[in-house]
């Protein structure tokens, strides 16, 4: 186990890269993937702290986050498929109608 700071920096870096992806990319699929990356970065934090304190609760939360990521991916991709079927595009700035 390295000092916790390393893990925090790694986590931060991944989080920020994910954030950049979410904000700048137009392709919704890549945006969703960036969100997955953010969730994953959070997991690193949780697991690292769980190791430091010797308390497994952090890992339990990491598990919940993975479950949440799965749910989010399923719904998000479902929306993308439905959207693509109607508009033939996956670019988010063309998702400018609240209905179709």
């Amino acid at each position, binding site marked *: 186990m390295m000092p916790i700071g390393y893990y925090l920096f790694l986590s931060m870096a991944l989080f920020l890269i994910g954030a950049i992806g979410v904000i700048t990319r137009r392709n919704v699929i890549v945006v969703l993937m960036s969100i997955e990356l953010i969730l994953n970065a959070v997991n690193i934090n949780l697991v690292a702290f769980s190791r430091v304190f010797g308390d497994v609760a952090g890992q339990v939360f990491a598990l919940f986050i993975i479950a949440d990521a799965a749910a989010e991916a399923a719904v998000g991709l479902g929306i993308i*498929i439905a959207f*693509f*079927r109607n508009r*033939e595009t996956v670019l988010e700035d063309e998702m400018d109608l609240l209905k179709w």
Partner: protein
Amino acid sequence: MQDDAAQNQTLLGADELVLNMGPQHPSTHGVLRVKLKLDGERVRGTECVIGYLHRGVEKIAENRTYQQFAPYVDRMDYVAAVSNGLGYCEAVEKLLNVEAPPRAKVIRTIMTELQRIASHLIWLGTHALDIGALTPLFYCLREREEILKIFEKYCGARLTTHAFRIGGLQYEAYDSFEKDVERFCKDFERRIQEYVDLLTGNSIWIGRTRNVGVLSAEDCIALGASGPVLRASGVKWDLRRAQPYAAYDQYKFEIPVGTKGDTYDRYMVRMEEMRQSRLICLQAIENIPAGPIIGKVGKVLKPPAGEIYHSIEAPKGILGYYIVSDGTTQPYRVRIRPPSFINLQALDKMARGHLVADVVAIIGTLDIVLGEVDR
């Protein structure tokens, strides 16, 4: 491998995906090319592109004498060469107004029925292989080998036999001909049970063939389908019974028919046809009449001017020859009605709404030979 129009299509898009099946594809039985219009894996339409094996057999006939053309017909349906030859010889005999002697007729019948079994064996093996059963193919080839050995002993050739001559036979049956045929037929009953064990009751096989490629009797008649495809739809039409040729009027045999007209029915019909062919052979070898093997035909054939149509029940369906003579030694025009070609028309009707895997099964169940489709 894609057309330009197909380039921009997706599996999900509103437009259809075009999948080119063939001409180089393991299960199009040669060089058939089928353009499948797909929605996901569901077939929305098919288009057959044929002609990759076109050799102009009908045109060749116009520049050959009647005898010279006989070997060419063997190359059409090359897994049932004997049947092709029988049809052609009988057609020319009709044109010449001669008749083969009874002995020749009986031997022709035996050979043709053996050929029917061989053809159906190839069908069964490849059809099963298409559906994913690897093993029946080799059993089928094993039995077919026995038939081919008989052919080889009889006329020296195995595949493109050119077994018959116009007016009768060129070769007398060899000494143990009856014995060989009898041994094969005796053996074959047991062998056919092996295929039945492997396939008939197999739930995967049933699942893959039941309700797949259903063709109603009306559709069959409208499309001109013939042979087992027609009979599996419940139409009891067999030229061997309806317009007996060779020596078929002397023998008793059943004409198996199906009820639904699906792939399973066609399977069952062909299996039963093999059994019936076996019975015909057994009946025929019991009493092969003695006598000459070739009728009175000259060295140079000059049929009177006129036209003739003669059709036989080839393993794949009705094989017809339409020959126009202008009184010279060469036919003026030959037109062949190949069963595979016409049965293939049913593909679109049968495949619509099924999955890609079913298209393979349907191509298999139609039992096409591209040599015959393209001629």
